[in-house]
């Protein structure tokens, strides 16, 4: 039992009246303070039911629910819900109320004074990226889908709850807006550090949003719960593997950054105006047919083939091909792979923040990084098994 478990489900069960098979069967789960835990699974696995058990929109038929080690299984459900932000896919803004009134819902119930509520409304609209003066007095029907979703999030944050429950919050939004809202939400979360339980059926959304992911099977059985990196590197069984689907290795590259996980190797370079003989020798030694041409600020500019450098003449400014693809030190290996595929030399040059050349990422680096992640994940699970 982790000391910083913000939400703890202890053998929680839900059996609907008139059915024998429980919708949620003996589920124990901890959500740590400040993390986004994503519940993901095929439709009908009980992930939404599980989410709704936490704020008791569905009353459990067994087990206990703890918030901050306080047993909330039997406390007043309305009061409990005012402490927990709740966002659903259809948003459910109150159409007869202005955006400001919508956001004020919970603060008003908690008896905040008017000035504090007004201040809170403006702050929250700003947080979700809507101009308070423009949107405060609008009605929900005057908003686009993306704007309505932002207001939905602002309303859930109304009284600054420590916990948020989000049920496919971006599910009904077009892919481009969804991507933007996800990114914005993640950056808001970086400041707010709420404890969030997030339900989705989309594994890619889970990988993107989750600090940890719980992959749920039938009756909300947890098949695997871990960081997205580890789940991608080491799916524990076929169910999880099938659910992650094709390309899990590629997805795993999103979690490795260029500077952290890769030892960058030197690469034959030369400067404009330099005698190419030495550079050719360096290229031969490195076993490559390309030399990277740097300008006087050490910025990589062109890929020059060794064959253009014969005869001892200085290199002309238009030989070889322009460097169109480079990544920064903070980039992910996924981005590095993308640049590698574009680059003529099949490597991805890495530059420092000021744009100066640092090294290159090669396919072998990615290969090593992936194998290391898999090994680490396997060792982690072996250790878990040994200690349990």
């Amino acid at each position, binding site marked *: 039992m982790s000391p910083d478990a913000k939400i703890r489900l202890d053998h929680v069960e839900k059996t609907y009246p008139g059915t024998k098979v429980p919708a949620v069967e003996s589920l124990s789960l901890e959500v740590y303070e400040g993390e986004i835990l994503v519940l993901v699974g095929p439709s009908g696995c009980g992930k939404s039911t599980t989410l709704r058990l936490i704020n008791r929109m569905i009353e459990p038929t067994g087990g206990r629910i703890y918030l901050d080690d306080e047993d909330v299984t039997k406390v007043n459900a*309305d009061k*409990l819900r005012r402490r927990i932000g709740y966002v659903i896919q259809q948003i*459910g803004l109150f159409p007869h109320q202005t955006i400001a009134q919508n956001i004020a819902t919970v603060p008003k119930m908690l008896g905040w004074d008017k000035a504090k509520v007004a201040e809170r409304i403006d702050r929250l609209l700003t947080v979700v990226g809507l101009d308070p003066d423009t949107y405060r007095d609008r*009605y929900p029907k005057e908003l686009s889908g993306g704007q309505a979703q932002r207001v939905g999030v602002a309303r859930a944050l109304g009284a600054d709850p420590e916990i948020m429950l989000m049920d496919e919050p971006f599910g009904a939004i077009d892919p481009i807006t969804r991507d933007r809202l996800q990114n914005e939400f993640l950056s808001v979360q970086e400041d707010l550090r709420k404890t969030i339980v997030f339900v989705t059926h989309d594994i890619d959304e889970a990988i993107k949003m989750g600090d940890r992911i719980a992959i749920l099977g039938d009756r909300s059985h947890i098949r695997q719960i871990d960081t997205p990196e580890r789940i991608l590197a080491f799916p524990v069984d076929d169910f999880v593997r099938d659910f992650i689907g094709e390309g899990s290795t590629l997805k795993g590259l999103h979690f490795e950054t260029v500077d952290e996980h890769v030892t960058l190797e030197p690469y034959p370079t030369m400067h404009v105006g330099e005698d190419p003989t030495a550079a050719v020798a360096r290229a031969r030694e490195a076993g490559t047919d390309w030399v990277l041409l740097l300008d006087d600020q050490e910025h990589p500019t062109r890929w020059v083939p060794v064959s253009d450098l014969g005869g001892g003449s200085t290199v002309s400014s238009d030989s070889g091909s322009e460097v169109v693809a480079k990544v920064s030190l903070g980039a992910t290996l996924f981005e590095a792979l993308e640049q590698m595929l574009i680059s003529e030399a099949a490597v991805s040059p890495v530059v420092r923040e000021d744009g100066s050349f640092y090294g290159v990422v090669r396919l072998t680096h990615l290969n090593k990084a992936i194998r290391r992640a898999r090994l680490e994940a396997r060792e982690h699970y072996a250790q878990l098994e040994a200690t349990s």
Partner: protein
Amino acid sequence: MNSILEWFGYVAERYDDILETTWEHAQLVLVVIGVATTVAVLLGVYVQRRPTLRAMSLSITGIFLTIPSLAFFAFFIPVFGIGNRPAIVAMILYALLPILRNTVTGLDAVPPAVVESAKGMGMGTMRQLFQIKLPLAWPIMMAGVRIASLITVGIAAIAVLVGGDGLGSYIQSGLTRLGLPNSEFSVWTGVVFTVLLGLVLDAMWATIQRFTTTKGQRI
């Protein structure tokens, strides 16, 4: 054309009395609508999510509306005596169906996601009802009130037959004296002012609806 002018003369001569009778008629309608709205809305809220009671209450109020009004009015004389009271009771029962039906329909039309989010934010049953469900159902409920009001304005003209007030008195006295001077004018007066009253009341409900709904609810 001539007779219309003569009718204007007839009306002008009795202007005060006609207005007073119209006002009596309006009072009958307002009392009926007031009581019927209260009863039907309470009943509607109670039965909306209870399928059996809902079906029963809609059928029973439907049956009320099909009972011929003359018989229905007379039916209450033994209980309430002669006068406005048997008429008012009968008309309340008539007015129930449109208001009840529209209350139930209006509550049905509240989007489930709105109720879900209200509940999810910690609104109790009463808050959900008064802050969310009823305000959202209100335009449809008001449409029911307007229909009930129009029906009642028409039926109230029969109240006179059980000793009640209202514009029915002009129609009745005209019909009993048919062929005698001014008898047709009297009937026309009753009919025209009943129709006018119906229109005025309907405009009044429309205005009330306008001021009790927000911009977010209007189409």
